[in-house]
């Protein structure tokens, strides 16, 4: 019962926060209507200053200008940070004398953090100088979610018939009015719970048994807040949020879960407010929570089923699987965190996903393959709307009604773009997994034999394509092959869907709104939530079931039957 509460309390808190926070988001990004927004008094002068220093304008953009602005900004940032990584050995703020990064690793890492993925092929504690950690990693941890939140807001404005807006205004507001203030509050709370926040070097101690122990510290609290809130997920330490300094107790664990959901679970309600269709926002929200709850139930029961291979040695009978987990979290909290981090495409981990029992491993994979149970900041919600449009289109055809979304007809021009985007995701995951499994360069990195090894490969590309960033970390992935291929997958998996969804918004924006009639299929009733779930699961199953069968399902059969 208490264990159930430990999972239910964060969800209940989120359900309570989602509406006011969603409305706050709607308010601060509704500047095209000419209304004043919350925070204008204090923040507008500062935001104008940033715009003026940069020499940018705040006029509304068309979709091509918007897309160019975001692509150019993000690609330039990748180039700058790539250079910082390559030169970190000779740049200042490098007290431990970390060497400059190798080319393919720097390529991978720069793309990884700009695409909100945070796959980390470098070693956590020793791969980056303080300078790289701050103006490389931390900088991108703000810039990446700010970009996606900006595009998502432009997308929502577009499909609800407003002007697209200006990328730079959206980008800067995302930082000044959402990411930065919340990070400051939670960062300090995290320090109060025990996370270090210092620029001093590692502390050396003599242990009780007389050994010398070096203890790495650093500015962890400020890092953690934006890592979770922005659905970034890259760890300050190598083992991420399973490190005691990066997740000291049950409360910090619960707060991290809330932060991962905060923006992405509030966006449907921001959308409901902006589109004037509040009920549809709630329906989508409810559908996603329902999928999330079912997945969590599977994962939690998977971990409590224990490890039969160990039980055959005569130990651990009736006990949950504890390999790769921390003693301060219940197995339920560990499994729940794993489902949360993959549903929200964050990638932070409080346990090692490679050690998960097969069913929980399957759930984490499924989350990244579907990429639509919440998803990351902004990008996730656009995916959700894409699936909602597919649901409208498919059922509209089946029952002979005109497929309409928010009063606009969905026609072949939009559906073509959506179909290509839909196919891209499996193509990246399965195509590159096949490549890795067929070549020595790919196979050489697998560290767990048999079916689990296949899962390791599929997991890595799912994580890259969905911009998640967690891994079956046993995979020995700091090789040119993995650095370059996952770098490409992350870049395409990030920017092509963003571009496609802007194009869809543009296409709908030009259409006339048609009045609702008795022939309109309602999208604000529970049945639509059901259709949305069905559509997601059927499309997902048709695409990925074969891959899941030779990975986690086969592993489950060998282990338990």
């Amino acid at each position, binding site marked *: 019962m*208490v264990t159930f509460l430990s999972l239910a309390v964060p969800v209940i808190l989120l359900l309570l926060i989602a509406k006011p926070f969603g409305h706050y988001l709607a308010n601060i990004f509704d500047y095209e209507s000419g209304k004043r927004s919350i925070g204008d008094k204090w923040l507008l002068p500062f935001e104008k200053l940033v715009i003026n220093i940069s020499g940018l304008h705040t006029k509304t953009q068309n979709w091509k200008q918007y897309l160019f602005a975001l692509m150019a900004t993000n690609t330039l940032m990748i180039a700058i940070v790539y250079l910082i990584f390559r030169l970190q050995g000779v740049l200042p703020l490098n007290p431990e004398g970390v060497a400059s990064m190798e080319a393919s690793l720097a390529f991978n890492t720069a793309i990884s953090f700009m695409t909100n993925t945070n796959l980390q092929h470098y070693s956590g504690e020793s791969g980056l100088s303080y300078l790289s950690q701050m103006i490389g990693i931390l900088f991108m941890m703000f810039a990446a979610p700010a970009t996606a939140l900006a595009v998502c807001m432009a997308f929502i404005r577009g499909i609800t018939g407003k002007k697209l807006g200006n990328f730079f205004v959206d980008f800067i507001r995302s930082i000044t009015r959402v990411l930065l203030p919340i990070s400051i509050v939670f960062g300090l709370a995290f320090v109060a719970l025990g996370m270090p926040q210092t620029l001093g070097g590692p502390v050396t101690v003599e242990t009780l048994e007389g050994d010398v122990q070096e203890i790495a510290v650093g500015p962890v609290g400020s890092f953690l807040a934006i890592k979770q809130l922005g659905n970034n997920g890259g760890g300050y330490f190598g083992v991420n949020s399973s490190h005691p300094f990066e997740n000291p107790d049950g409360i910090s664990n619960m707060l991290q879960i809330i932060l991962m959901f905060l923006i992405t679970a509030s966006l449907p309600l921001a959308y409901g407010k902006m589109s004037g269709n509040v009920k549809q926002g709630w329906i989508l929200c409810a559908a996603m929570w329902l999928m999330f709850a079912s997945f969590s139930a599977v994962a939690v029961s998977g971990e409590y089923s224990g490890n039969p291979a160990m039980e055959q040695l005569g130990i651990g009978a009736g006990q949950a699987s504890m390999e790769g987990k921390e003693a301060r979290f219940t197995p339920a909290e560990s499994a729940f965190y794993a489902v949360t981090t993959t549903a929200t495409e964050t990638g932070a981990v409080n346990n090692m996903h490679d050690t998960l029992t097969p069913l929980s491993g399957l759930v984490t994979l499924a989350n990244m393959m579907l990429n639509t149970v919440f998803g990351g900041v902004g990008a996730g919600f656009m995916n959700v709307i894409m699936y909602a449009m597919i649901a409208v289109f498919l059922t509209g055809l089946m029952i002979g009604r005109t497929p309409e979304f928010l009063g606009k007809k969905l026609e072949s021009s939009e559906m073509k773009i959506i179909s290509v985007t839909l196919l891209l995701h499996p193509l990246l995951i399965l195509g590159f997994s096949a490549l890795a499994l067929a070549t020595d360069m790919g196979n050489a990195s697998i560290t767990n034999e048999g079916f689990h090894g296949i899962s390791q490969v599929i997991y890595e590309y799912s994580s890259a394509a969905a911009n998640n960033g967690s891994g079956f970390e046993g995979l020995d992935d700091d090789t040119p092959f993995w650095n370059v291929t996952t770098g490409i997958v992350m870049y395409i998996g990030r920017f092509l869907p963003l571009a496609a969804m802007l194009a869809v918004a543009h296409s709908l924006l030009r259409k006339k709104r048609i009045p609702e009639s008795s022939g309109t299929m309602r999208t604000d009733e529970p049945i639509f939530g059901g259709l949305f779930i069905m559509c997601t699961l059927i499309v997902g199953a048709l695409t990925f079931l074969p891959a899941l069968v030779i990975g986690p399902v086969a592993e489950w059969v060998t282990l338990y039957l």
Partner: protein
Amino acid sequence: MKKLDVPMLSLFRLSFVIMLLCGLLYPLAMTAVAQATMKEKANGSMIYDEDGQAIGSEFIGQSFRQPGFFHGRVSSIVYDGGNSGSENYAPGNLELLDRVNQSLYEWVNINEEIPVAEVPIDLLTNSASGLDPHISPEAAKIQIPRISAERNIDEETLTKLVEKHTEGRNLGIFGTERVNVLQLNLALLEFIE
């Protein structure tokens, strides 16, 4: 470029402004505030002996091998606090089973009276971080007969000591009931003195 309306130089400027704000100003200001208001925690919650010498951190586990101390979780990195990590063995990995067999062998060596079937699983498995400072209260209690024999302290006193150092769930809901191994061993030494 004119049609797309964004001069390249402006993008450079924007990048550097955001870099300064989020990459430098934010972490430095947070560090200043944290150091001014929560110095001890901000520096890693270190534990000191009477001479003011740091002997460990409240949050970072230490390696205990002597039979007279309570032991913690398995750590493939031997509690190297400058690093973190574990072996990432899948549940069916044969090397995992080999390692568990090794732990069982060591267990039988120093706890001959306690059958392995009764050993809590957290003592036989590698934590995620390799730095886990905690074990379950059961895992502490099952070591009491050994400590009692080694240190010549009666089991009842040790049970009380373990119970005193058992932390409850946070707010009664979150996390587990757990024992901080380093602090328990410190209390053990203190008791002996």
